[in-house]
Every structure is written in structure tokens, then in C-alpha cells.
């Protein structure tokens, strides 16, 4: 039976080739041609003038990823140690905000961070502030952390579920201190979760264009903003936009090579 009825996958294969492989080939084609369709390297060469956008995107995405990891690690561990009956509810509480549309979530932060926003009003009651929070790099990072934190918690939690409590107890019995326990036992055992989490936070963070628009006031152009402006914005240059997209893809692939990407199991874990 193995050899029969493979053809049933044909529509899918054709679909994927036409609507994922072909479009990516188009991106490559546009990246290496000019507006008249002649081959050129000019698009890629001109990327040099956007080095700082690449740097800024990478820096903000790295900071956001690290913050996510630091914030998510303890809660993931706590979740994984809860009684089975409680885990479901607790996990639900952590994931609930993610089910809200991410534009609305980001928008919610706008009214908190504004100069006359609620945080400044609240601090003002104690005579502190006001602080400039919106339209700063910090606000953009905050938006990334808020939106992508669940992508870090889930894989960490999934990986930690597999860690047997008795291993940790054994370490305690053998006199391991808190830090020792963390470095020698928890971190190595949760490594697959960390790798998946990093990928799943970093990729959307490095390519976002909404968060920087909404919370950065247009002062912090990231790769996503640059690409968007080439396709649907002021700049209108598909070829340059494709070249930037191509480089972004390479960056993502490099990161995945570095973290080992994520396995099929992780994808199933998330959905």
C-alpha cells in the first residue's frame, strides 16, 4: 500500500510550489533586477546605506528576546511543577492575552505609555515624572516583549514538563545550591525549549513593522518598516524591497542555524 495513492498529495504539492516556492523565487528575481527587468546588483549594493536599520533591528530584537527569556523562564518552570489539574487553568491564564488581536494589544500600550497616559498620571500622584515613554526604543522593545512573551513561555513549559522532579530533588539531596541547580540541571535539560523559544520570539521581533510604527512614532525604522515602505509606502521600489527581504531571510536562516531552528514536535506543541 505504501506506493499507491501518493497522488493524493499532488494538489498540496502543486499549491505549495506555486504559492510558496514561486513567490520566493520572485523575491530573488526582483532583488537582482532593476525596474526595467535588467539584471543588476545595484539593489544589494545600495543596502549598505541601511546598515544602521539592520543593526537597530537586530539589537532591538536581541534585547527583546533576552528579556522574554529572562521573564518567561521562572514562570514556565513554575507552570511545569504545578499539579496536573491546575496546569491547564494556569497555562490558560498566561496565554489568554495572546488570543486578543495583537494590534489591539499593542494599541492598549499606547494609552498607557503616553505623556498624559495612565502610567504618567499614576506616577504623578506621587509627584514622580512625567517620563517620556512612548516613541522611544524602550517602548518598541516593550511592545515586542508583551506580544511575543507567550511564544517563549510555551516551548519552555513544554520542555520543562519532561524534566522529572526527582532529578531536581536528587540534586538538592546531593547538596546543589539554587544556582548550581539552574546551571547544571535545569538549563541543559530545557535547552530544546530555549532554542525554540528564541527562534519563535526573535523571528517576528526582527521583522515587525507594526510595533515600531505604533509605539516608536516612526522614529525607529526597522527592517519591516523599510520593506513595507518599499512595497506599500512612500518609497515604492519593489526591487529594493525584495533585496531587503532577501537579506532578512538570510538573517533568519542564520539565526535558525545558530539555534537549531525548531522541530516538528515544537510546532505541534504551539498549536
Amino acid at each position, binding site marked *: 500500500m505504501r506506493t499507491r495513492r501518493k497522488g493524493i498529495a499532488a494538489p498540496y504539492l502543486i499549491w505549495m510550489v506555486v504559492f510558496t516556492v514561486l513567490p520566493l523565487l520572485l523575491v530573488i528575481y526582483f532583488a537582482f533586477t532593476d525596474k526595467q527587468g535588467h539584471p543588476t546588483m545595484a539593489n544589494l549594493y545600495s543596502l549598505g546605506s541601511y546598515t544602521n536599520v539592520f543593526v537597530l533591528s537586530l539589537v532591538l530584537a536581541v534585547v527583546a528576546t533576552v528579556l522574554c527569556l529572562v521573564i518567561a523562564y521562572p*514562570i514556565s518552570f513554575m507552570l511545569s511543577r504545578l499539579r496536573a489539574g491546575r496546569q491547564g487553568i494556569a497555562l490558560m491564564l498566561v496565554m489568554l492575552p495572546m488570543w486578543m488581536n495583537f494590534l489591539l494589544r499593542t494599541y492598549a500600550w499606547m494609552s498607557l505609555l503616553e505623556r498624559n497616559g495612565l502610567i504618567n498620571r499614576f506616577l504623578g500622584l506621587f509627584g514622580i515624572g512625567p517620563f517620556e515613554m512612548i516613541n522611544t526604543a524602550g517602548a518598541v522593545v516593550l511592545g515586542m516583549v508583551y506580544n511575543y512573551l507567550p511564544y517563549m513561555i510555551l516551548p519552555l513549559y513544554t520542555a520543562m514538563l519532561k524534566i522529572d522532579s526527582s532529578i531536581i530533588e536528587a540534586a538538592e539531596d546531593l547538596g546543589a545550591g539554587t544556582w548550581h541547580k539552574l546551571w547544571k540541571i535545569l538549563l541543559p535539560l530545557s535547552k530544546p525549549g530555549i532554542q525554540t523559544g528564541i527562534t519563535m520570539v526573535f523571528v517576528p521581533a526582527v521583522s515587525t513593522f507594526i510595533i515600531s510604527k505604533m509605539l516608536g512614532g516612526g522614529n525607529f525604522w526597522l527592517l519591516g518598516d523599510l520593506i513595507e515602505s518599499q512595497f506599500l509606502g512612500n518609497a515604492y521600489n519593489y526591487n529594493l524591497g525584495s533585496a531587503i527581504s532577501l537579506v532578512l531571510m538570510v538573517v533568519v536562516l542564520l539565526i535558525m542555524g545558530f539555534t537549531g531552528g525548531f522541530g516538528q514536535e515544537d510546532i505541534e506543541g504551539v498549536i
Partner: protein
Amino acid sequence: MAKALKRVYVVLLFSFLYVPIAVMIAFSFNQSKSRTVWAGFTLDWYKQLFRNSAVLQALALSVVLALVSALIATVLGTMAAVGINRMRRRARSVVMNISYIPIVNPEIITGVSLMLLFVVAKTALSSIGGGWLAAGLLGIPSLLVAHITFNLPYVLFNVGPKLRQMDTNLYDAALDLGCNQRQAFFKVVLPEIMPAVFSSFLICLTYSIDDFTISYFTAGNQQTLPIAIFAMTRRRVSPEINALSAIIFMVILCIILVANYREDAGERKRRRNKRR
């Protein structure tokens, strides 16, 4: 000490997660338009929201789009899972790698690459005289294709493992007992993987309703709900948007509570049955 620290951390984390949403919902009942000064209770913004034809049209489009794209993606994806399950290892890994592309690629790249495809296709179509076809391409057709495309791999990755878990002897036995292939599939295989197929359909629904980035680049002259929300946040902001958030949040919350309750009940029932 450690316990106190733990408690502070948990409280801070949950405040971080929920305060923005709580504030949004609270201000959906605010009498004034201000997002920061409380002026009294009202339901006016909810009334306005239900009069806002742009939002309602976008909502209707999002729902139809989600249902149709989820349905097509589930059927195609399930067929693919069955076919791929029967492939040799080499061929299977090639297919799997292609399937990873939309999952791994940043959404913006999926969006712009599809946009390039549609634009090129449109130009090509008009040049060979399919102008009427080309004119309507960017809009609902392109949105539909885009949504099916980013949904398909999830179906594959959801149904595939279920198939592999299945006992292949069942299928062979059905054939031996006189079923033809079609009957064997529909009577034996499909019931076995049905839960995975159904859950794939639901996953596709959520992804489709929630997607902004890919739709933004492929929507042509159409507006899905997330695109309408984006347009709202770019303009003079009305507390209608808070009202919309509150409704969405409440709907989700109720559903999850119901789902959780049902799951718990199911769990208890299973345990009881086991004991018997």
C-alpha cells in the same frame, strides 16, 4: 524570602499581562473620548460600534474568509498528509521542508512574496487579454489564496502524526475484508484521524481571523477585521476600538471557560469509566 520573591514576580508578571487589557476594557465604558480621564459610565461606544459599517463589513469578510480558507486548507492538507505518509523517506523530507517555509519565514516576507506573485500574475493576465480576470485578482481571491497557503502546513503537521500513529494493518484488513480503497479510507482511516482533522480546521480558523501582516499585503481593495482595526488605530481614535477589544476578549474568555469545563468533565468521565 524566596517565597515572597516568587509571589512578587508572579503578581508583576500577571499585571504586565493583564493591566493593558483591563484598562482598555474599562475605558470602553468611559463617557468622554479621553483614553486617560474617567468621566462616567456609558454604553454608547458599543452602540456606535454596531453602527460602524466599516467594522461590520470587515468582520463579515474575516469570518467568511476564515471559514472558506480553513475548509479548503483542511481538505487539501489532509489529502496531503495521507499521500505523504505513503511516500519514501527522501521524498517525504523534501515535502516537509517545503512545508516549513511558510511557518519559518517571517510573515512580512510571506506577505510581500505573495503580493509580488499576484502583481506579476495580474500583469501577465492582462497582457494575454484576461483583463476582467486580472482586475478582480487582488482582493478576495488573493486573500483566499494567501490564507489557504499559510494555513496548509499546520494541517499537515497536525494530521500527519495522527496518521503515523495509526495501525496500518487496519487499512490492510479493511482491504482484505473486501473494501475498495475509497471505502477503506472513508470507513477506516478517516474516522481514526477525524479529531486531528477537525482540530486542524479550528486552528486554521483562528490563524485566519487573527492574521494581519500577510493580509495587509495581499488584500487589494478589501479590508479584513485586523486591517480595519489597523486603520482605526492610525486615525483619530474612538473608544469604539476599546469596545471591540472588550467584546473580543469576553467572547474568548467565555469560550475558553466553557471549553475548559467540558474538558474537565470529559476527563472526570474517562477516569470514572477506567475505575469501573
